[in-house]
């Protein structure tokens, strides 16, 4: 493959650049280096499906991409209302990109509510495709349009394409034996066909997808494919769409390999299956459905042929309880949840700290407190993960930085849990969970070896010479205790949440022993071997921007903008939040200023300030959405200058 990269960096101004060419006798074809499209409609309009399909087409074409689904918590919010708008944003490019993009170049608005809710995000000159059929007086009044925005001049600064999507779809399907209502449902596929034409997307994948999805209803499959093709042909023939666009594959942005598009929750699920195989332990998931974590339960439930057991529990507590029971029995045990679920699981996490059994606690963070914003993203569970238990109950914390990175983060969390016999918190979030990006598919033999040795025989000799098993006699290097599973003869032992005597594991209320055990559990976590923090600092900057988790994309995009503009700034991103990398203190001390952007009110900043006595500056946003690169760039510029 070759690429047509016109600019290696994300453009700071959000405009599209490119050249124009014209094939003989055909419409204009313009070449772009990147595009941001947002599909928006009612929550029942199928916008997420439309976005997913456009993403798949784009991935198979070989662009780099990043997506941002954004939908209400209600399954079918009241039709035609602002709170009911569901959208899907896709950024794709012929080069390496990091975020779903700040401002869409193209908005597809399926109704007045979708237009009103999204038009404010568009830069002047952006293209707007509206479904004019839905712009009835009543529908416009519902969202506060006194006059039609399509006619009152308020959209003059944009390139408006009024298309009667519903009428055209129904017309295209008139030969099918469908009611009008049924035919109307395919209007998202008409829109997808039109956009696929506009951006020269391959179509085979979508047609194949529709055939599979509606395998049991071939009529519906055929109707959707007909609507999809009609949309394509409409673009090809109508004069309103004079130009189509090419965005070349991003060949040089990627290392050699085979790629697929993957969302964070899918990558995390695969990471868990991979960890189970690499550890040669059966995977057990105990879980209770909760947004935005449920997709991991759904996905793992499909892989029973890998020996994966999924247990949908009666509540969050039973989910982790069953997982802990399976861990005692020698499974690679996992529980998946979001912040409210972590709150309920806290006591059992504490028990796992006391039992010193491996357990993965996966928190797909969402807006809080309480029920908060179930479908929106936030990273405000860090302090809960660190400290949200009674007593001194340290737990390692690991965070992925991009959707695809969830795969590696799952393997890393499993490595720590298995090596150190401890519960591990993995903090993903709603943005990573539902967002997607290309992923270089790893070779199975590249994956880390996670095999563990169950204890098979006595590990201690009493004074009288008797050989016994001591469940709390630790490995001197890792401080991990032995993992002896039921079914192993001669190692019968009892564990529990009451304080245990060092070594023997018998109940102990001895004050000195408790002090020793508390310090030892802490020392075990503090001593976990984690890689050093890497710093990206090509110019010897004086300001460091430090992040963790899903802010990696926006922070990196902002740093690129600043460097393109001639600024000097260093960047580092934490995967390990507990323990921190050993060199973190040294890194922080090298900079005059440390800025920590977070989608919370400064939780990492609190930890950093407390541990390293560094005057770290917090930059915060808690609006349920990821940072925008431009906004971050501005904030970082102020920090550099300030």
């Amino acid at each position: 493959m070759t690429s047509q990269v016109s600019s290696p960096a994300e453009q700071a101004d959000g405009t599209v650049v490119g050249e124009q060419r014209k094939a003989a006798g055909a419409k204009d074809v313009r070449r772009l280096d990147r595009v941001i499209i947002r599909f928006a409609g009612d929550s029942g309009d199928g916008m997420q499906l439309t976005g997913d399909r456009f993403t798949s087409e784009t991935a198979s074409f070989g662009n780099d991409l990043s997506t941002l689904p954004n939908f209400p918590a209600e399954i079918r919010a009241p039709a035609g209302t602002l709170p009911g708008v569901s959208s899907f944003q896709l950024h794709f490019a012929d080069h390496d990109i990091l975020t779903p993009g700040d401002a869409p170049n193209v908005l597809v608005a399926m109704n007045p509510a979708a237009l009103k809710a999204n038009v404010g995000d568009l830069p002047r000159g952006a293209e707007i495709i509206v479904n004019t059929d839905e712009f009835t007086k009543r529908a416009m009044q519902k969202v506060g349009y006194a006059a039609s925005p399509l006619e009152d001049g308020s959209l003059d600064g944009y390139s408006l394409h009024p298309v009667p999507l519903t009428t055209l779809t129904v017309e295209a399907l008139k030969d099918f034996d469908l009611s009008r209502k049924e035919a109307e449902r395919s209007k998202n596929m008409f829109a997808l066909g039109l956009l696929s034409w506009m951006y020269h997307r391959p179509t085979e994948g979508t047609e194949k997808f529709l055939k599979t999805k509606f395998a049991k209803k071939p009529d519906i499959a055929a109707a959707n494919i007909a609507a999809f093709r009609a949309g394509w042909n409409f673009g090809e023939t109508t004069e309103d769409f004079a130009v189509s666009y090419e965005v070349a594959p991003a060949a040089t942005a990627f290392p050699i390999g085979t790629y697929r598009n993957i969302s964070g929750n899918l990558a995390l699920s695969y990471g868990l299956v991979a960890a189970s195989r690499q550890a040669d332990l059966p995977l057990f998931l105990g879980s209770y459905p909760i947004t935005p974590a449920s997709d991991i339960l759904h996905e793992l439930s499909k892989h029973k042929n890998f020996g994966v057991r999924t247990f949908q529990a009666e509540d969050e507590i039973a989910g982790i309880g069953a997982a802990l029971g399976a861990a005692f029995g020698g499974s690679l045990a996992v529980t998946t949840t979001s912040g409210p679920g972590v709150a309920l699981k806290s006591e059992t996490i504490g028990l796992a700290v006391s039992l010193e059994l491996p357990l993965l606690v996966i928190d797909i963070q969402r807006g809080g407190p309480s029920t908060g914003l179930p479908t929106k993203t936030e990273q405000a569970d860090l302090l809960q993960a660190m400290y949200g238990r009674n007593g001194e109950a340290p737990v390692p914390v690991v965070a992925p930085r991009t959707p695809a990175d969830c795969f590696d983060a799952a393997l890393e969390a499993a490595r720590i849990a298995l090596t150190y016999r401890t519960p591990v918190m993995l903090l993903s979030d709603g943005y990573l969970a539902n967002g997607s990006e290309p992923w270089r598919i790893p070779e199975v033999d590249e994956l880390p070896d996670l095999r563990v040795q169950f204890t098979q025989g006595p590990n201690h000799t009493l004074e009288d010479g008797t050989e016994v098993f001591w469940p709390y006699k630790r490995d001197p290097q890792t401080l991990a205790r032995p993992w002896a599973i039921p079914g192993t003869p001669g190692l019968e032992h009892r564990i529990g949440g009451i304080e245990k005597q060092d070594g023997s594991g018998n109940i102990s209320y001895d004050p000195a022993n408790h002090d020793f055990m508390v310090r030892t559990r802490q020392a075990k976590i503090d001593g976990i071997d984690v890689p050093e923090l890497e710093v990206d600092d090509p110019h010897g900057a004086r300001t460091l921007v430090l992040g963790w988790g899903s802010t990696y994309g926006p922070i990196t995009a902002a740093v690129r903008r600043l460097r393109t503009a001639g600024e000097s700034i260093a960047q580092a991103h934490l995967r390990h939040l507990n323990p921190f990398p050993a060199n973190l203190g040294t890194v922080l001390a090298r900079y005059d200023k440390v800025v920590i952007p977070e989608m919370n009110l400064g939780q990492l900043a609190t930890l950093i300030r407390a541990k390293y006595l560094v005057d770290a500056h917090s930059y915060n946003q808690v609006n349920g959405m990821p940072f925008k690169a431009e906004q971050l760039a501005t904030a970082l510029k102020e920090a550099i200058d300030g």
Partner: protein
Amino acid sequence: MAETSTEGTGTIEALSLVPKAEARQSMKDFKSDQEVRWCPGCGDYAILAAVQGFMPELGLAKENIVFVSGIGCSSRFPYYMNTYGMHSIHGRAPAIATGLAASRRDLSVWVVTGDGDALSIGGNHLIHALRRNVNLKILLFNNRIYGLTKGQYSPTSEVGKITKSTPMGSLDAPFNPVSLALGAEASFVARTVDSDRKHLTDVLRQAAAHPGTALIEIYQNCNIFNDGAFEALKDRQQAEEAVIRLEHGQPIRFGGGGTARSSEAESGGLSKGVVRDPVTGDLKVVAVTPDNEAQVLVHDAHAASPTTAFALSRLADPDTLHHTPIGVLRSVDRPVYDTQMSDQLDAAIEQNGKGDLGALLAGGDTWTVVG
């Protein structure tokens, strides 16, 4: 006393995947080296002795036996059993044991819990374990009081109970654990008494043989905070009126001394019986006469419907304990969760082949960058 319904030797279907002990075992093999720390005189001692005494009869490799408990006096139980064990957190033992049993079918998993642990803080886990029918044997020590926290009323305490937290009497109506379990779709429900070792052992034997979740309510005396709570069932004189001994296939008769081994009304041994009220369909206690003797209900623990078992459970007066049925109220075959979970794994392999990680990761739409 009843004949044993299951032979102790030979293979019990519910435990067919659990390895057998190589050598003959004794009660001593099941005693751990830990000092037992219940209050002197506690009913827990008798239950511990009964369980330790019964275990050798199962003949299972003791490394394949696990006791899981929650929090409370009874939940110290695992520390005293020389098997694998976990003393967990309040109310959660059924959930933890579910994960263990579902992932390890080669284990015999026992849950030890109390009335507060199982019915108050852990009520949710108990009912869901019962409906799922996981291969667990749950021993519910019911002393109708909170002992470990020094004497507050429990969810099985009688209304009006004067305790530290209810100086003017408790207000809440108690749970009947047997009724609750039957309502939760339990496939095996029994009740026994700490001091009747023979009966307790027989119930343990039947529970061990049962595939799926077995709930055994054990009336247990707390001699410190609720002494004599079950005296009506233990005192020989009072027990005649109070205890209804259930045996599958036998007429439900009691009263007038002796055991309900057979129909001995003519000899004056068993004066009372349980009959169905033809008007309401409910059960009632009657004095048995030659005229009504034929109407005395024959206990059917294997009845498909739990209705009659439920009606039996309701005969007991929560205050006086009169007409308290003991024995196995219900024992029916129902699909076992862990067996079915395992079957699904096998079926998935049969349908799709054993999982291939490389193929999984590479699935879906892919593209290749060749440089």
